[in-house]
C-alpha cells in the first residue's frame, strides 16, 4: 500500500490547508490563549482571595473543566452557547453564534482552567515578604497585584504559559469533530472527499511536529533568558 501513495492530493490543496486551515488554527490559538490567560489570572486571584464563596466558586470551576474530556466540552458549548447568549441578551430565541466564535468561547473558557493553575503557582511563588513590603509602602491590594506580584508571576511563569499555549495549539485540532475547518479539519475534509487519508494524516503529523518543535525550542531559549536569578 505504501508503494502506491498518492501525494499529489497534498500539493493541490496546499492553499486551502494553509490559507484557510492553518490561519483558523493560529487565530483561534492566539485569541483563546490571550483570553484564557486573562480569565485564568482572574480565576487564580479569585482562588487565592481568601473570600469563602469566591475561592470556592473558582475552585469548582477549575476542577470541573479539568475533569471533563475536551471533546465533550466542545460538544456541550457548541450546542449550549446559543442558549447562553439568548439568556445573556434577554432574547426569546436562541441567538446564532458562528462556529468560530463558539470554538473561541469554548477554548477560552476551557484553557482558562489550566492557565489559572499556572498563574496560581506563579502568584504563590512570590515571597510573602514582597506583599508585606508593598503594604508597608501603603499600596492597596490592586496596586500590590498590578505593580509587584503579577509582573513577576508572569515573568516566572512565561515559559509554562507558552508551553500550555503549544498544547492549546494541538488541542484545537479537536474542533474537527464539529466539522470546523482548522488545519486538521481541512486536511481530513480533503482526505475524506478524495479517499487519501493516510497521506494527509502523515503530512499533518509532519506539519504539527515542525511547528510545535520549533516553538518549544524557542520557549526553552526564552526560559534561560527570562529566569530571575535568586
Amino acid at each position, binding site marked *: 500500500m505504501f508503494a502506491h501513495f498518492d501525494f499529489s492530493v497534498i500539493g493541490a490543496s496546499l492553499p486551502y490547508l494553509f490559507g484557510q486551515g492553518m490561519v483558523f488554527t493560529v487565530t483561534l490559538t492566539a485569541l483563546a490563549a490571550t483570553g484564557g490567560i486573562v480569565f485564568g489570572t482572574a480565576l487564580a486571584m479569585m482562588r487565592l482571595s481568601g473570600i469563602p464563596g469566591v475561592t470556592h466558586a473558582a475552585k469548582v470551576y477549575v476542577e470541573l473543566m479539568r*475533569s471533563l*474530556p475536551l471533546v465533550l466540552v466542545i*460538544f456541550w458549548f457548541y450546542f449550549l452557547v446559543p442558549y447562553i447568549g439568548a439568556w445573556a441578551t434577554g432574547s426569546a430565541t436562541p441567538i446564532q453564534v458562528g462556529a468560530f466564535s463558539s470554538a473561541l468561547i469554548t477554548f477560552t473558557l476551557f484553557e482558562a482552567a489550566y492557565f489559572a493553575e499556572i498563574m496560581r503557582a506563579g502568584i504563590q511563588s512570590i515571597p510573602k515578604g514582597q506583599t508585606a513590603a508593598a503594604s508597608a509602602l501603603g499600596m492597596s491590594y490592586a496596586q500590590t497585584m498590578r505593580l509587584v506580584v503579577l509582573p513577576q508571576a508572569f515573568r516566572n511563569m512565561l515559559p509554562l504559559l507558552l508551553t500550555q499555549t503549544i498544547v492549546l495549539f494541538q488541542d484545537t*485540532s479537536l474542533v474537527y469533530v464539529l466539522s470546523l475547518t482548522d488545519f486538521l479539519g481541512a486536511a481530513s475534509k480533503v482526505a475524506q472527499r478524495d479517499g487519501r487519508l493516510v497521506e494527509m*494524516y502523515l503530512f499533518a503529523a509532519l506539519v504539527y511536529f515542525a511547528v510545535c518543535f520549533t516553538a518549544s525550542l524557542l520557549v526553552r531559549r526564552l526560559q534561560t533568558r527570562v529566569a530571575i536569578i535568586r
Partner: protein
Amino acid sequence: MNYTWNWGIFQEPSPEGVGTYADMLLSGLSWTIATALASWVIAFTLGSVIGVLRTLPSRAANAVGTAYVELFRNVPLLVQMFLWYFVLPEILPAGLGTAVKQLPDAPFYTAVLCLGFFTASRVAEQVRAGIQSLPRGQRMAGTALGFTTAQTYRHVLLPNAYRIILPPLTSEFLNNLKNTSVALTIGLLELTARARSMQEFSFQVFEAFTAATLLYLVLNLVVVAGATLLERTVAVPGGR
C-alpha cells in the same frame, strides 16, 4: 427550545439487540477504565525510564530521552492515534502487519499503545523534574555510600522523586483518563463514543451527554480520592 426531553430513554432497549441504553453507556465506561489503566502501566514504566535517561550523566542517554519526549509531545494525540492504527501495520513486515490487523479488539490494543507512548512523554518530564528538584547532596550521598548509579536511583533518588511528583502524576493520570475519549476516532467503544452513538440512534443528544459528563465527574472524584489516600500512605513519617 425545540427539543423533546426524555429521561426515560436510558431504560429503553438499545438498537444493538442486547441491553438498554444505560447498559450501553456502562459498557463504554468499562472500556474507558480498562484503556486508562492498561495505558497507564505503559506510560508509568516507560515514562520513568525515559525520565531517568534524561537525568543520567551520559550524553547519549540524554539525547535519546529528549528525542523521545519531543517526538511524542509535539504531534497532536488525535493524529498519533490515526498513525498507530492505519499507518503502523503498513510499515511492519507483511505477515506481521496482517496479523496485527486481524486481532480482535484491535482498537483497544492500539489505543492502549498510543496513549501509553503519548502519556509516557509527559510522565518522563515529571520524573525528570522530580529527580532534578532533589538536593544534589542526595546523589553524592549515594555515591559516598558506595552505591552504583543504578543503586543510587533505585534506593535514593526515585523513592524521593516519586513522592514529590505524586500530585502532578495524579493529574497526568486524569489527563490520560480523559484522553481515552480521543480513541473514539479509531472505533474504540469507550464512554464518549457510546454517548455519541446513543444520541445518533435515539436523537436524545442532551440526555446522552449529560449522563457521560456525570460518569466522567464520578470517575474523576474516585481517582482524586484514591490519590489523596495514596499520598497519605506513602508520606515519609515526620518528613517535610
